[in-house]
């Protein structure tokens, strides 16, 4: 069980694409020479933005994607996104995301509304190590101030999050933030039906 990536994004309805404020990802699953290593972070950022953008304030949603589940929680425009193993319990994941948003607000107040780039934030790495075991995240449930009754919306695929008529394939194709290598990689992986590349 592990937390593959944690991100904090600013989702401003004025700016089209969410801005990454902080992120951390775990590359330890890839050997030194794994070809996936170099493109992995790009994919994470792409998917995080795609999901966060479609998570309105006050909403919580989870998307199943290959062997991961992507969870997103938006509170007043500040959005936490987590990439976890498929079997990391959904409630524990949101408990963690809630905590991440809490601590971020404590550390940065409202300054994030004027921030437009990613800053290193050590808590994120600590959190992804500590809450690797969902039992730790469950402990948070007891001390979290408000019991969040918001329903968690579940999607079986990323296409489920997208608007009617939108498809992940075309988003990848049109994206200006994915390198050519990544796009070719995506096409190839789809053709051979291989997994574990996140896209």
């Amino acid at each position: 069980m592990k937390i593959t990536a944690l991100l904090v994004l600013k989702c401003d309805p004025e700016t089209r694409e969410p801005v990454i404020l902080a992120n951390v990802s775990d590359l330890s699953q890839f050997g030194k020479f794994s070809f996936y290593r170099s493109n992995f972070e790009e994919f994470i950022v792409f998917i995080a933005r795609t999901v966060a953008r479609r998570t309105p304030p006050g909403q919580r949603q989870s998307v199943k994607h290959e062997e991961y589940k992507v969870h997103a929680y938006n509170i007043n425009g500040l959005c936490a996104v987590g990439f976890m193993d498929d079997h990391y319990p959904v409630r524990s994941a949101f408990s963690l995301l809630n905590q991440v948003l809490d601590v971020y607000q404590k550390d940065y107040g409202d300054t994030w509304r004027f921030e437009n780039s990613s800053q290193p934030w050590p808590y994120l790495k600590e959190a992804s190590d500590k809450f690797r075991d969902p039992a730790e995240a469950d402990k948070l449930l007891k001390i979290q101030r408000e019991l969040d009754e918001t329903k968690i919306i579940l999607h079986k695929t990323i296409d489920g999050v997208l608007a009617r008529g939108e498809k992940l394939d075309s988003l990848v194709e049109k994206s200006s933030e994915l390198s050519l290598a990544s796009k070719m990689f995506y096409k190839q992986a789809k053709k051979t039906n291989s997994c574990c590349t996140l896209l």
Partner: protein
Amino acid sequence: MKQGPSSEDDCFSLLKQFEHVLESDPLIDEVGFIHPSQFTMLDKEAGFSNEFQPNNGTSSKFWNQDHKLGISTDILVQLCKDAKHVFLLALQEYKSHGNACDESQIKNISCSPCIPESDVMKHSQSVLLLSSDFGTAWNARKLILSKKDHLSAFTEELRLSGLILSNSPKSESTWSHRRWIIKMISQSFSTLQEIITKESELVESIGERSKMNYRAWHHRCWLVSYMTIEQVIQELNKSKRWAGLHVADSSCFHYRRRLMLKILESLYVKGSSAYDKTEARKIWKEELDWNEELVERYVGREALWLHRRFLSLNWIMYFACNHSDASPETGESIIMNEEIAIFIDNEIRLLDSSMTVPDTKFEDFQAQALHAAVYTLWLTKSIPVLWRMLEEKLGTEKVKCVLNTIAQERPSLLHHLVNV
């Protein structure tokens, strides 16, 4: 390139370069095949600017930093062909001339025609790093090693096969070779305990990066036959955390069952004491409670339910029953007693709570219901009285619901398990 009679200098320069890199860095612990486009990225990661080329001449073929070695896929095929060719020549030389030289001389003579043994070792290493399942190469090494009598030769062999596993973690020949080495060590030396512990740790670290690696876990199960009971109990404790973090991995629970089986077997050996049985009982109970915790936290994980089958049945047959010394024959019906009844009550409660499906979007809850149902049905095969208890506790409607769940997903299973 020059044509004509084999000018070894030209034709095998790739192999020479490769073997030179290996010799100059004996601490290499990871090997991989890399696409040419990765060189720049790896250099950047290591902190080198574009102008500085650390490996002059070999910069686009081999990447070697921090004891890691990457081989460009551009040269891979040629290198592999060369290595095989040179190895087979060396092997032929070794077999036809025998190894007339004394071992100690080999270190001093660097290019005498009479050192076929070290050539075979050198070139077989090269070929196996590129093609880990080349049986002839492994056999050649076994042939030479079986004539050695110092432990260092075998530990060095463990190091090499570990290096090969870093690139080919599922190579059965490599795992098999490791078992051969361990057997050889166990026959002549007595330091097995530590080796077994290290071997077990190696499998766990490989299992972390290489998912669904049956061969690695099979290897770990094989080690159990060399463990003392103290070591078995230690292993059970040490590997618990990892198992708890990999609940979808059936192999690691299969390993735990192998360990627990060994504990169980030791109870039926002459000389086992009541203390041993108490200890074993405690371990079993802990495992059962822990498994229940996991089953409730990680909804729908089949590996956990499969593990529970083993735990429950053996609990009922060996620990909770009234047979004091004799082990029950299979097929003998189990005599109900209070302890077994309490246990079964709990299993029925577990089944009941698993049958509620709050939402169907992610299928985890549906899977949980199915696994719980199948588990219960499986138990009834050994404990026929369970049927009656289910009816009593849950009522006919719920029992029908359980059977329906199975009928929908696994109809053939229902037919097989229920003697209607």
